[in-house]
């Protein structure tokens, strides 16, 4: 499918338009369109899965399961939601199930050691270096969070899912989701930007 690279007229980017067309075709039973959807979104789905489960092997399993469920449920996907949001919700749900299963068997979590690429460089080299360093620290601190706290802050603050969707996919109440979100944010803020008297304030500059 060829999408002209014209200047965007609205908030919908050419990438979104292409996805929308692929989704329509996939809903009508076009398997090749679904294949293209997988290829177009696999890296992002994997990234979300990795941020939720914390290691490569489990992230691949979660991504696989998410696409299986998306494939089976594509007819039920309503065009009024964004496909990426729908897929994120499925991925979150699969990750929650996977973590629940995993935690019954083992407690170790590998650190985030995947290569990271940023395809949106838009600042001066100095600012970029500074913000990259901050993002690296944030990524490391996210990996340190307990999975149940990490899931909520990743889904809310990185992927913009509403509280209700997060609660539904993780199988918890909206109130519980908000409590976890606050705990996660508080812990991250204290680690990254400690105020005087908080842990780490002596070791790290404000």
């Amino acid at each position, binding site marked *: 499918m060829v999408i002209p690279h014209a200047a965007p007229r609205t908030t919908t980017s050419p990438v979104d338009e292409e996805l929308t067309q692929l989704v329509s075709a996939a809903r009508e039973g076009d398997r090749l369109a679904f294949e293209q959807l997988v290829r177009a979104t696999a*890296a992002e789905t994997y990234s979300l899965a990795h941020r939720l489960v914390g290691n490569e092997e489990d992230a691949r399993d979660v991504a696989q399961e998410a696409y299986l469920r998306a494939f089976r449920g594509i007819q039920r996907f309503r065009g009024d939601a964004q496909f990426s949001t729908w897929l994120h919700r499925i991925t979150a749900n699969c990750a929650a199930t996977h973590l629940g299963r995993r935690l019954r068997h083992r407690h170790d979590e590998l650190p985030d050691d995947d290569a990271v690429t940023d395809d949106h460089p838009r600042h001066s080299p100095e600012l970029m270096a500074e913000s990259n360093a901050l993002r690296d620290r944030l990524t490391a601190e996210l990996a340190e969070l307990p999975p149940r706290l990490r899931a909520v802050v990743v889904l809310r603050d990185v992927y913009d899912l509403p509280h209700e969707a997060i609660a539904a996919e993780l199988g918890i109440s909206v109130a519980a989701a908000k409590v976890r979100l*606050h705990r996660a944010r508080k812990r991250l803020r204290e680690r990254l*930007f400690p105020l005087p008297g908080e842990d780490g304030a002596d070791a790290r500059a404000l």
Partner: protein
Amino acid sequence: MPVRCDDLARVLSASTDGEALDERANLHVESCLRCQAELAQYRKLIKVLHTLRTEVLSPGPSLAADILAGLEQAGERSAVRSLLSGRRPAVLGGAAMASAAAVGAGAILVLRSRERHGSR
């Protein structure tokens, strides 16, 4: 009773989601440098968290191919189950249907063989 900084920890973080601070909280924050700093740090944290969205982890070249192979296998399993239970396979067209047809041919042979057994 005066508002203490600790009482506001949660509302400061929630206010970055658009939840408005009530009047007492607002009055406190206006006169409390520590809470102002905390609020600013929450906003900064959430801004940085948001930028992670554009960072795509590298899944390795074979991820999409592995996922598609997994779908294919699942489609075949589903087709076999559906044929054996007499329901229409819940798979989309293309190769998955082709595999279903191939499996179907096998299933028909099995059914015919059963018919022959049954007629004896």
